[in-house]
């Protein structure tokens, strides 16, 4: 098992609010469903273990229903898992006039009527989210992914962390947690689609890791159905090797 600090840097404006257009503000968290399914969309189904029908170009009753969500939670693959991520750059919105052009925000117009337009509040390019990735196998992860209602481009950057311990007592996670994946005792609920996640979450098990540069320890939750890694410390030229 390997863990990575994960940064998602927006290259395009990001919009994914789903409530009415009048309150179309994009939340400043990324749901783990968004990240995991964005990444699995790029990686071959043989690696992810995901049913390729989930990504079919034709979505209809013949392969699971047109408007049925194609996931039960954010765990897209049993090989790797991206935690939810939080915005680490200052929150500001990029409002943009959007008129109906068959892009999901069609406003009916009559002849002679002023073409109706709505303001959508995007998160601007260069905004950055941070979360973690836990990977059981060596996967070549994509450097560009597409997120949000308009599938805007974002850059995915990973930095491998050193696992320095595991824990099985209550700790506060260093990242927002998907409560359908990891049992959460306490925390602050963040309301967003497709279901709420929990920030400042107290969790019962996971790994502790640190980066080479920063000595700060990170507390990372594991999906409940995953086993904690077995750590065996081996001295090797002063470096700790995890087996």
């Amino acid at each position, binding site marked *: 098992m390997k863990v990575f600090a994960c940064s998602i840097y927006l*290259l*395009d*404006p990001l919009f994914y609010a789903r409530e009415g257009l009048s309150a179309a503000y994009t939340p400043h968290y990324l749901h783990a469903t968004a990240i995991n399914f964005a990444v699995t*969309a*790029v990686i*071959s*189904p*043989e690696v992810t273990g995901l049913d*390729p*029908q989930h*990504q*079919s*170009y*034709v*979505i*209809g*009753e*013949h*392969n699971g229903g*047109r408007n049925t969500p194609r996931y039960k939670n954010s765990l897209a693959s049993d090989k790797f898992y991206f935690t939810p991520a939080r915005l680490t750059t200052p929150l500001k919105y*990029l409002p*943009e*006039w*959007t*008129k*109906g*052009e*068959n*892009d999901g925000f*069609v406003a009916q117009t009559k002849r*002679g*009527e*002023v*073409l109706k*337009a709505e303001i959508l509040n995007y998160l*601007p*390019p*260069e905004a950055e989210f941070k979360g973690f990735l836990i990977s059981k196998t060596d996967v070549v992860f*994509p*450097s*560009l992914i*597409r997120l949000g209602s*308009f*599938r*805007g*481009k974002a*850059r995915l950057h990973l930095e491998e962390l050193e696992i320095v311990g595991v824990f099985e007592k209550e700790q506060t996670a260093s990242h927002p947690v998907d409560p359908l994946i990891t049992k959460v005792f306490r925390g602050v609920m963040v309301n967003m689609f497709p279901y709420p996640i929990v920030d400042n979450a107290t969790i019962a098990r996971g790994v502790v890791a640190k980066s080479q540069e920063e000595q700060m320890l990170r507390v990372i939750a594991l999906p409940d159905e995953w086993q904690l890694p077995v750590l065996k410390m081996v001295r090797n030229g002063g470096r700790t090797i995890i087996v």
Partner: protein
Amino acid sequence: MTNAMGFFNDIKVLPRGRYLQLVVKITLLDDAIIRSNEPEEVLTFTYKKLGTRFIIPWRKVKGKLRRMVMEKQRELNIPQDSKCYLKDNLCMKCPACLLFGGTGETSKTKSSYNLLSRVLGETFISQTEVKDISAYTANAVDEETLTTGQALMTIVKVPTETEFIGVVTLRDPTKELTAILVDNLNRLTRLGASTREWGKVKTEIIGYVLSDREMLSSYDIVQEMPADLNNIKDLQLPPVEDSFRKVADAIIKILPEGEGGQGKKKQKVTAEAEKE
């Protein structure tokens, strides 16, 4: 099945993880106008890294491209049994719908399926920074949108010869799909709705990269042009009219049976079957 160039010879219902990335340059041949009180075709954005740039949202380019593909296929009488029109008369079985996607809900045919777009884009960013914005305020009177009244609006001019860079990506390309996309990109000579005020553009494909994932972005390219771009002319694409016909025939095979297609109904097309 791929040929030597890495293009597919047929159209499938499942993604096969190949991306044709076209680096596209749009040059303004006239001054363009940014108006603050209605949907703009060109905006500005101040990047931390790039400074203030003019930008064109991808939706604007995609909307125009799709319209052009629809016009072209109407000219060729494709598809023969129904016509495809934005916004809510999508036929869901023509090359334009296959390329740009559509939802059965807004479709006149009330299809019980959605099509995912095979063409992906991004924000086009001006090659150079915006200097000395000449903004002035005027009464908002516009014949085309019938907006009248005392509202004031700010007008910003985007100078002639401003160049924008963007990447247009085609998923799982065949030569025919590529020919349609390239032909219509090359014919993109106007952007936006208000052509009276919005000047002409020239659109060029600078080069392409074929890869198993997306690697290029306008954000990076305006900082440094990638060195390993291939020339689109080397692809020797088939004539666009033949391509439209071939793609139109191929779509019918992948649509669900009972929806005007010949594909399999209520039966899972597995990864194994796809490999045959």
